[in-house]
């Protein structure tokens, strides 16, 4: 596969104007987030649980931004900038675990359920619909209680958040893949494989799977951003990870509620902005992918001048006036 056929790269080349601007902005924000998460130890001036520096002693609580602490310190006496940077690591970890797990389970169940149908399908659909209709954060709360009992170690907290998000997202992947499978299953190329006598396994994995999962890059980006929001929501409600175990933006915001009323603005603003920018970045990528995938929503350049080679449309046709491949079909809505 050539590199410019890869998802995202392909869409980037395809995009034009404002749409491209949105995609590029999203990619940059997401890139910064990934870099921050990967290189947190190098970028952050202090550790996430560090309260004192060897030179100056304790940081002190709610110190306003200064040259020592660029974004100030929190009520608990932590460095805000360091916790914002370290927080990206926790967020990325949760996203990776949650998206991988729910993707794997959801795709497999959706494929099997949609392909075979029958009573198993009906039961799975009812369950998925029920879980889907359930307010996701409430479900995450219940699961966080189950998994960690509200305790908050690093691993326990991350797993609690990741697994609860997995349970919330699995039905979404299930529904999307199942619906696509049902659609693809009815397509002529799957029927033609059936007519040939291909077995179920061959049809499912060779013909249906890849055709039914084309929208997944889009869903992954959108769900990754939802994962962050859910993680932050859990942290905000007190199911976050203790400050000594890891840095987590929602937890910091929760601790900052009372600061706001007393005019301490830096403890809430920066973790909040971090959440907004990361979610914004990933959503921009996801939405752009979505628009580019949908011909109705895709912007195209307007031809600058009447030009172009009419013969080029018939390049692959050995038959004069042969049916046109691909794009030309939309020019000519006419003949069948």
């Amino acid at each position, binding site marked *: 596969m050539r590199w410019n056929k890869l998802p995202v790269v392909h869409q980037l080349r395809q995009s034009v104007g*404002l*749409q491209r*601007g*949105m995609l590029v902005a999203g990619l940059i924000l997401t890139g910064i987030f990934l870099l921050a998460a990967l290189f947190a130890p190098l970028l952050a001036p202090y550790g996430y649980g560090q309260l004192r520096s060897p030179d100056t002693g304790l940081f002190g609580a709610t110190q306003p931004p200064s040259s020592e602490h660029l974004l100030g310190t929190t009520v608990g006496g932590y460095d805000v900038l360091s916790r914002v940077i370290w927080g990206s690591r926790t967020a990325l970890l949760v996203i990776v675990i949650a998206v991988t797990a729910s993707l794997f389970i959801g795709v497999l169940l959706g494929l099997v359920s949609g392909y075979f149908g029958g009573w198993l399908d009906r039961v799975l659909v*009812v*369950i998925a*619909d*029920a*879980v*889907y*209709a*359930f*307010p*996701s*954060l*409430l479900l995450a*709360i*219940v699961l966080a*209680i*189950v998994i960690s*009992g*509200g305790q908050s170690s690093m691993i326990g907290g991350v797993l609690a958040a990741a697994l609860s998000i997995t349970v919330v997202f699995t039905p*979404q992947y299930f*529904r*999307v893949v199942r*619906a696509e499978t049902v659609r693809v299953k009815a397509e002529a190329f799957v029927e033609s494989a059936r007519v040939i006598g291909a077995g179920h396994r061959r049809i499912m994995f060779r013909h249906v799977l890849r055709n039914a999962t084309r929208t997944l890059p*889009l*869903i992954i980006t*959108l769900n990754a*951003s*939802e994962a962050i929001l*859910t993680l*932050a*929501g859990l942290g*905000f*409600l*007190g199911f976050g990870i203790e400050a000594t175990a890891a840095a987590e933006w*929602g937890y910091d*915001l929760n601790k*900052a*509620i009372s600061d*706001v*009323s007393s*005019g301490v*603005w830096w403890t*809430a*603003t920066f973790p*909040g902005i971090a*959440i*907004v920018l990361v*979610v*914004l970045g990933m*959503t*921009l990528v*996801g*939405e752009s992918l*979505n628009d580019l995938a*949908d011909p*109705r929503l895709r*912007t195209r350049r307007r031809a600058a001048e009447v030009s172009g080679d009419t013969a080029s449309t018939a390049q692959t046709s050995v038959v004069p006036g042969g049916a046109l491949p691909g794009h030309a079909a939309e020019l000519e809505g006419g003949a069948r």
Partner: protein
Amino acid sequence: MTSTTLDPTTVDVPKSGPPKRSGGGLGRYILIRFLLIIPTVFILVTTVFFLMRATGDPITAAQGGRLPADQLAERIHAAGYDRPILTQYVEYLGDLFRGDLGTTLSDSRPVTEVLTTFGTATLELAFYALIVAFLVGIPLGLVAAYFRDKVPDALLRVFAIACYATPVFFAGLLLKLIFAVQLDWLPVAGRASNRSELAMRRLDHPTGIYLIDALRTGNGEIVADVLQHAVLPAIALGLLTAGVFLRLVRTNVIGTLGSGYVEAARSRGVRESRLLRKHAYRPALIPIITVVGMQVAMLLVGAVLTETTFEWRGLGFQLSQYLQARDFVAVQGIVVMLAIVVALSNFVVDVIAALIDPRVRY
């Protein structure tokens, strides 16, 4: 947050009901759709029950470590939590059917009383937020679709994404910081000032919906006070949903603007603005209405977080209080209640969608 940020045209809207063809008609559809609530609610109630019990009994969770072991065991026995889990489950279902959700552990109140007392506050907040969402989301969505791919469209789309990229609690904190703390235009927290609350409590049978109660006092100052308190929470929560609406209206209207019947109407010389308002908007409304149903779930989640931010004493605020207190009987009751509300509102929305769509598809 729920998956509503996905494109409604690519995600299949929950077709809980089977695709109905002609015959039987609307009445039959409503009945079948109503019956489908039952398995949904049943699955949710069951899931929540077993999940909550998987961690152990609620008394240990609430009192764990603070009581001597024998006293703890005695309390557990008294509450019946030492019986087989299935027995407890059957009893729980029976109680639920009679409308008994148990008694909270932390403040010993019937859960149903908690629900009725604080539910109205959440309802009021959700209502304000929906108004903000509709007023902001739908017109701006139409504007964005009209100026498709031009600068106003790009700005509005970034605005929409920013709306749902901002966690409600952060939006709430920011609004508080700016409008309540720095500018001091609006109150920092709560549903009303103490004086107004006292005045409203003196009414016979206060409804708990402060706007109605305030109007009943006939005191303009109280009404203004109540409304002032509602502005920031309503905006914080409403903008989140407004972002989703904006995007949804834009996508669907653009979709219908490209359809054959819009081109046909254009070929008859119908104005562009009319094409937008009539031909594109109304068919686009059907998927929108369906997604609005799913928004109820999102709105409730948002309400939980908004209430905590603004100390708006509703179900969400109570939920986080009970969560801090590890009072899982209360948590379970509130969660089940919210789930039922979501299931019911999805039903209502499906019926509305069926009414809008004249095709006998339903």
